[in-house]
């Protein structure tokens, strides 16, 4: 893609300065939700009654507090000069083994500042929403405990100043995600989905942990600061390996092909979880990892190319899934996968793409959380039915939900003026400037996005009522609609971050400054083409879905493409035949080897030793005379051994 040499000079070195003033409170951002999680989960054993009544307020309060601190620090950061915007805080020495000295170090820079605002801001709204959504759940206290645990872990992930602290948060969000997907563990499908997510994420985690081990052997440390300084000194093979291993980690967390299969199943969790973890924050951790590791990726064009390929495949894959799903949450999950593909794509494009990856990540965080929560609101009114074929005509029954959802819809398809328009347009533009094929794929993805989102809107809010008999749709309580309104406003206005190239300049201390690439066409022409393609997608949806009668049951005589998309493009089947099947036969083989081979040796060995013991035992006959004889024999043995060795 790009020659590494010229890229190397442009990536800034991580060089944090000490935390002073407001920034010395950085730890508080993590400590607040962590304390909430501890109180809710551990304290629940002590004061169950009281915590069951007020637990959700504690959980919400800590995250809101965290958001306020993040906001305060963000404003303080804006007041600083560009070269003073990387702040490090050393909390304590985590562990020290041999030459490996790992500190619990935090790094606050423009990149993590934006993430903090997203995580705690959207997180706060989702907490508020959950108060209403989980009102009748008997285990609400525990739910908020898990949510707080997730927020704390995610904050550790984006604030860590070395890869091991990041890994701590990485595993923490994995755990919280597992707990929350399986929150309704009485449902078999939820338990299975949680397990699936956990196992697939483990594959990615292997990549990240191997990358960390490789960093340690190469650089002797896992600190961002040292590695960013010394990365150019490592061999190309090492750098390629690092880039690919980090990408493997990112694929697991961010549900990129080939580790995408868990995300759709993860929708078994309560809807706020889908919004918080599987749309707005956790799944973007992979993008964060790639952008954070820019000092490595800029030196390894090979890994960058692979990132771009993975991202392009994923953005189309997710979009296709979104077209065929009747489950509203799964359709949204497919779209999430696809949108993360866009972010990955931007991240893979290097310096020019990093700011737009983060920009799209933020706007996506707003509009996708908005739509997930909206979907939750719809389900709330439809007795937890998720099948869009059972919806229809809901716009007049749930006006607020409909309007806010519509804002999210316009944002995601990239309707001019809405936030998604700016962020996606920038990515496609950059991709076109870099590689025509990739750019066209991104453009195609935008068209498909227009199609499936319109389909979703039409099936849910327009058309005939196709409700089940005893369903009486109603608007959700204000504790749920207020977060929707806030998020809708952010979905509309998120684009102002691009005003005056604010976000690009703001992130430049981390991502570097891109040299200007001339796109093949003028920017305005590209924008018009994108809008045109999206309009085509919307129109196609109107003709294929909006004008036809929708069956309450999904028709079975459909084309091959639809069937494949409904089956997640056979992702599970591929996993089954490539991994599960061979794994299972290997397990059977090992078990039978253990039974016959290992057990045989052990049991045969022990039988042999036992028999030897039985024979030797006869020497111990209780007669002093034979004991004395053995003593004499021993004396001979000792003396002969001495003489034989020395005089022979």
């Amino acid at each position, binding site marked *: 893609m790009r020659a590494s040499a010229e890229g190397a000079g442009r990536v800034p070195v991580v060089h944090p300065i000490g935390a002073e003033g407001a920034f010395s409170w950085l730890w508080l951002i993590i400590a607040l939700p962590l304390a909430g999680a501890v109180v809710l989960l551990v304290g629940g054993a002590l004061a169950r009654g009281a915590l069951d009544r007020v637990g959700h307020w504690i959980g919400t309060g800590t995250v809101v507090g965290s958001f306020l601190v993040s906001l305060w620090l963000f404003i303080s950061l804006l007041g600083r000069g560009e070269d003073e915007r990387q702040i490090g805080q050393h909390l304590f020495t985590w562990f020290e083994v041999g030459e490996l000295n790992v500190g619990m170090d935090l790094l606050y820079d423009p990149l993590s500042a934006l993430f903090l605002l997203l995580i705690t801001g959207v997180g706060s709204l989702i907490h508020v929403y959950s108060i209403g959504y989980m009102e009748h759940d008997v285990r609400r206290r525990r739910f908020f405990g898990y949510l707080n645990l997730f927020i704390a872990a995610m904050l550790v992930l984006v604030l860590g100043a070395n890869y091991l602290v990041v890994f701590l948060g990485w595993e923490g969000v994995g755990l919280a995600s597992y707990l929350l997907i399986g929150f309704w563990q009485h449902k078999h499908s939820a338990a299975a989905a949680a397990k699936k997510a956990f196992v697939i994420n483990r594959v990615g985690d292997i990549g990240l942990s191997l990358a960390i081990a490789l960093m340690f052997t190469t650089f002797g440390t896992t600190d961002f600061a040292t590695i960013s300084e010394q990365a150019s000194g490592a061999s190309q093979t090492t750098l390629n390996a690092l880039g690919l291993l980090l990408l493997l980690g990112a694929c697991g967390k961010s549900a990129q092909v080939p580790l995408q299969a868990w995300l759709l199943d993860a929708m078994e969790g309560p809807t706020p979880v889908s919004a918080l973890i599987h749309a707005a924050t956790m799944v973007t951790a992979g993008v964060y990892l790639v952008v954070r590791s820019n000092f490595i990726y800029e030196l390894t064009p090979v890994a960058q190319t692979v990132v771009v390929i993975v991202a392009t495949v994923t953005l189309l894959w997710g979009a296709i899934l979104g077209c065929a799903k009747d489950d509203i949450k799964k359709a949204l999950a497919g779209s999430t996968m696809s949108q993360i593909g866009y972010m990955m794509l931007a991240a893979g494009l290097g310096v020019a793409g990093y700011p737009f990856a983060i920009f799209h990540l933020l706007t996506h965080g707003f509009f996708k959380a908005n739509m997930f929560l909206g979907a939750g609101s719809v389900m709330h009114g439809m007795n937890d039915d998720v099948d869009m074929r059972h919806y229809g005509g809901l716009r007049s029954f749930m006006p607020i939900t409909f309007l806010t959802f519509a804002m999210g819809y316009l944002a995601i398809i990239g309707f001019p003026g809405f936030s998604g328009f700016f962020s996606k347009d920038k990515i496609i533009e950059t991709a076109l400037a870099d590689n025509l094929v990739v750019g066209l794929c991104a453009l195609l993805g935008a068209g498909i996005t227009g199609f499936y989102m319109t389909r979703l809107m039409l099936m849910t809010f327009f058309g005939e009522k196709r409700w089940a008999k005893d369903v009486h749709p109603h608007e959700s309580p204000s504790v749920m609609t207020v977060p929707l309104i806030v998020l809708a406003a952010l979905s509309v206005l998120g684009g102002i971050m691009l005003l005056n190239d604010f976000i690009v300049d703001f992130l430049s201390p981390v991502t570097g400054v891109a040299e200007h690439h001339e796109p093949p066409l003028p920017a305005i022409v590209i924008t018009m083409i994108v809008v045109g393609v999206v309009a085509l997608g919307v129109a196609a949806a109107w003709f294929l879905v909006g004008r036809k009668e929708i069956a309450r049951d999904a028709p079975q005589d459909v084309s091959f493409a639809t069937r494949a998309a409904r089956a997640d493009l056979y992702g599970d089947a591929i996993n089954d035949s490539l991994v599960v099947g061979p794994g299972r036969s290997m397990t059977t083989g090992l078990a039978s080897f253990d039974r016959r081979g290992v057990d045989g040796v052990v049991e045969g060995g022990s039988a042999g030793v036992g028999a030897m013991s039985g024979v*030797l035992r006869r020497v111990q006959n209780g007669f002093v005379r034979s004991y004395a004889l053995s*003593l004499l024999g*021993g*004396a001979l043995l*000792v003396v002969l051994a001495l003489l034989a*060795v020395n*005089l022979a």
Partner: protein
Amino acid sequence: MNEFVKPVVDYFELLPLLIVSGVACLGVVIEAFAPRRMRYLAQVVLALAGLSVALVVVVLIARDAKVYADGAARGILSVGGTIAVDGPTLFLWGLILVLALAGVLLFAERHLGGGVSAFAGQAAALPGTEAEREASTSGLDHTEVYPLLMFAVFGMLLFPSANDLLTMFVGLEVLSLPLYLLCGLARRRRLLSQEAALKYFLLGAFSSGFFLYGVALVYGYAGSMNFAAINEAVRNDAGNSALLLIGIGLISVGLFFKVGAAPFHAWTPDVYQGAPTPVTAFMAAATKVAAFGAILRLFYVAFGSDRWSWQPMMWVIAILTMLVGAILAITQTDVKRLLAYSSVAHTGFILTGVLGIQATSDLAPGEVTALQAVLFYLATYGFATLGAFAVVGLVRDSGGEVTALDRWAGLGKESPVVAGVFAFFLLAMAGIPLTSGFVGKLAVFSVALAAGAWPVVAVAIIASIIAAFLYIRVIKAMYFDDPIGDGPTVVFPSVLTATTIALGAAVTLMLGVLPGPLLDLAGLAGQFLR
């Protein structure tokens, strides 16, 4: 002839020896003059006080000991160079005194036997006669065991500090003779006990003969009994080396007999089984410490410069001992015999550490020395063994202690605490991490490996695996087998035994979790003073 020079006696440094032997003599006087009902209390208090004061004195000596060459060695040679009060001696003295204190507590236990001690009422009464019945119904008790114990402790203190062959022999005999007697004093199953004592005595005398003959041969080679002088002679290769080698061999026989190395171990199971359990506990723990102290000094100081000639022999003995101990333990059906064989196996492990000696110049700075590893292992082994035998004493039925393994089945369900503590000691002996045994084994194996004795270490690991099987078999019997109907009960002990068991368990756990301080202490002891 050299002119006789009056040796300098450093009374302060020899104070532990003097206190212990003085207390022992005083005990004899009490036995002769004090009224019968007062003797028990007087003897117990006297013994405990004497051992405690001696322990304090050891600490004081250690604090003020003279240091040579930046801490490479410390202490003095006294009484004309026949007794070395140096770092290793002080470490071993402290260890022996603590074990002896715990031993006295076990000896003094009267709660378990229903108000009488574990010792025969009247040893002179023939088993099964009217006289014996009378002695036991009138509540007679042999309080002579305390002076005997103190004499044995005196011998144990002298043994590892002896810096000359004759003194070493005296120490050997002084520690052995009281033990022979103590072994024959069991209140229950007296015939078994007396048989054990007689066997121990006969074989002990036999092996002492070997030792003494070896001493004569080495004297013939070196012309001196003194370790430093022998070392000098060995270094200069003066005289007939066959004399030296046979001498080393015969002296080794006497010492290997004491520690119970194969093929000199045959007495161990019989004696451990027959002796009263408190005696077994004390003997198994403290004798081994003292005898290994003597082995270390003899081989490192006197024959240290000729270690290439004796190391192969010790390889053979160590391998044989570990295998015999571990393999024979498997088919045992009696808990005390099982522990006896396990102690044989441990002798092999300690020998593995002993043969790990290297020249100081070959050691990396901060590396654990063979001496340090062996001293540490002795401490871990001593406390685990003492505790395990003390627990054995708790499991009883109407006929006294129950040691048959099949009757221990299901003990874990009936007395989870006692079974748990016993299981913990067994795990420590097996060398499971977080117990002292793991660190001890790691230490001796690594020094042996560093000295190039990898075949021995390989066998040691195999032996450890075999031994682990048998320890876990006992744990399985206690926890997973169904209790038998008329199984033994666990008698709740008095504070005396409880203290001993708690001490053993606490030390075993502490050395497993935090081995640093004691390893440092063993390292601080430095080398032997030559």
